[in-house]
């Protein structure tokens, strides 16, 4: 068997290139908190309205005791519910997405808020939105004839503006 010296050198260099990429990805995944939706949590998509968590009153952003926010959302043909909401910038957000019918996908352009929404599963994703403004939530997985009509709106405001808008009711009478 004959393998040329040049070929051996190139194979070593290629291995080095692939190794470097793998190292960067592992470091970013394990140490920089890349939160792909990997929670493997099942839910009955046909009974969402009867579930405690995704009943209508619970949808949208809710503040947690530690100051972070959990956003519960239902995707269904053709929209993401609630259709409009306001979120604070520079705040730890945990999105929990479920589908009430078929497969959907959702992303907020120019951010890393992106996940598939598979019926029967809860897709959980953590992120921080850095820039204020009006963003669309767009369906990015073919879900039927109305796929291109499936979107909702999210407004991102500064943290202090959001706090002003969401003072706990019946407390601030001073």
């Amino acid at each position, binding site marked *: *068997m*004959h*393998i*040329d010296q*040049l*070929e051996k050198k*190139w*194979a070593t260099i*290629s291995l080095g*290139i*692939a190794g470097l*990429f*793998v190292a960067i*990805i*592992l470091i*970013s*995944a394990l140490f*920089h908190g*890349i939160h*792909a*939706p990997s*929670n*493997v*949590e*099942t*839910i009955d*998509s*046909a009974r969402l309205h009867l579930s405690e968590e995704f009943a209508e009153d619970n949808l949208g952003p809710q503040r947690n005791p530690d100051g972070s926010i959990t956003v519960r959302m239902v995707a269904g043909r053709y929209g993401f519910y609630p259709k409009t909401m306001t979120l604070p910038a520079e705040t730890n957000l945990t999105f929990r997405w479920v589908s009430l*019918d*078929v*497969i959907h996908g959702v*992303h907020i*352009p120019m951010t*890393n808020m*992106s*996940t*598939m929404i*598979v*019926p*029967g*599963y*809860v*897709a*959980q994703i953590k992120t921080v939105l850095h820039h204020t403004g*009006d*963003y*669309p939530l767009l*369906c*990015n*997985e*073919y*879900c*039927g*004839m*109305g*796929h*291109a*009509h499936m*979107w909702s*709106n999210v407004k991102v405001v500064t943290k202090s503006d959001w706090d002003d808008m969401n003072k706990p009711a019946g407390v601030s009478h001073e």
Partner: protein
Amino acid sequence: MNNAVEKKLALTHLWVAFGAFALAAVMGLYQVVERSGFFGFLESREVYYASVSTHGVLMGFVLTTFFIMGFGYYVASSSLKMPVWNKTFAWTGFGVALAGVVMAALPLLGGAASVLYTFYPPMKAHPLFYIGATLLVVGSWFWCVSMIAMHVQWKKANPGQPVPLAMFATTANAILWLWTSAGVALEVLFQLIPWALGWVDTIDDGLARTLFAWTLHPIVYFWLIPSYTAFYCLVPKQAGGFLFSDEMARAAFILLVVFSLPIGFHHLYMDPEQGHGWKLLHGVGTFIVTLPTFITGFTVIASLEIAGRLNGGKGLFGWIAALPWTNPMVLAMILGLLMLILGGFGGLINASYAMNAMVHNTAWVPGHFHLIFGGTTVIMYFGIAYYFWPVLSGKPLYCKSLALTQLWTWFVGMMIMTTPWHILGLLGQPRRIDSVNYNNLLTLSWEPYEATMIFGGAILLYSSGLLIYNLYKTQIGSETFQGEVEYAEPIHAPTDLPEYLNSFKVWNIVIAVFMLIAFGYPILQFFLMETFGSGRWGV
């Protein structure tokens, strides 16, 4: 050896492949025009999604499968200098596959299977669509059996001899396809068909997506291997040189087969039904499968350099100018490699766990696979066609300059179409929308790119027409052509080849272990936890 039957067998397969391609190319232009929204009278989402579904099936499943089968039969027969094993069996496979295509075409064209070529349960297509697709795959299994049988026959007759490289690659592809298609076959047979026929009420989407991901990555290598076979075994000879390394080529094909299989979860990075660790494991494997492509790039470019220098090219880059740019197959490979470099760069971004979140399911993704599949893989199918048609039909190529124009326009059209497509993805446009309806200013930034893509699509359709015209005129020509497919010689003929570079026995065991590790628990988990299936939904 009288190989008239082999020629007819190969040519028949290739005509089905390019017939499907021609129809799908027309749909491609319609789609890029419709989705731009500039021509209101064309707008129809029903027609659009029927067209997208058919375009995907024709390009991804019909063009590829029939091309690979036809090419494989003739490579096996001409490289081994043997008749095709059991020709009735081969024709039966062809018949089964063609019947499957016709069966699937009925609901597809009628709009009753607008679920795209990736199926997407719980949206349900007409059961004929799933059954037809299954028959296409079953027909291709006949071909796999033929290739393996011929490989074994030849080895028995020539003990200890290295299997000719072109046949080694073709057998590699047959084995790869058997492993690859098992995932989608499990999904279709045990989930989709019983559910579509109403025998079971629900389908577990997480399991369905996991099984589809099993197939979804290695299938692209199934499509690519004929092109790589031409890179290694045909182009060096056409360019007037020699293959730089026979052994490294074998190593590259083995790495492709072994490592393209256990890595499908990079299609599920954004999916909730698989855990972080499994995704990372498959992600690491995805980078290992770049190695055979790095090796291929080096070996085939080194082979071109040998040819360029033998043709009188001097200096660091002079050999490039000395290459026979007017040989269609050499030109196809040069243009194909250029698109592979660009598309490969995009692929590395997709494979990168974190960066993928920025482009997942945006217009970037179809931009990427049109560049690397429609570009690199398919342009090499054209190069092979121009070389094979005279051999198979016995008529000289109708017009070489037309072939060169066709290859250049394909390259230019592909660049004009896919560059703005990638940019649209970075600007947030979701994939697979038939029109733009969002109430957001962002969409204004999309318009110039949508317009540019139409020009790319028009050039590509023109190029497709040139291809079909040239092949047809060749076929009906009156002159005769006598010639055989000639394979490139390596600089150093492979001697005392170790058995692991001349057989797949040990590699099948390695693949089985890898697949068990990569897919064992991720599939088993659906039977261990409580899951909730979905019913049947229309589109």
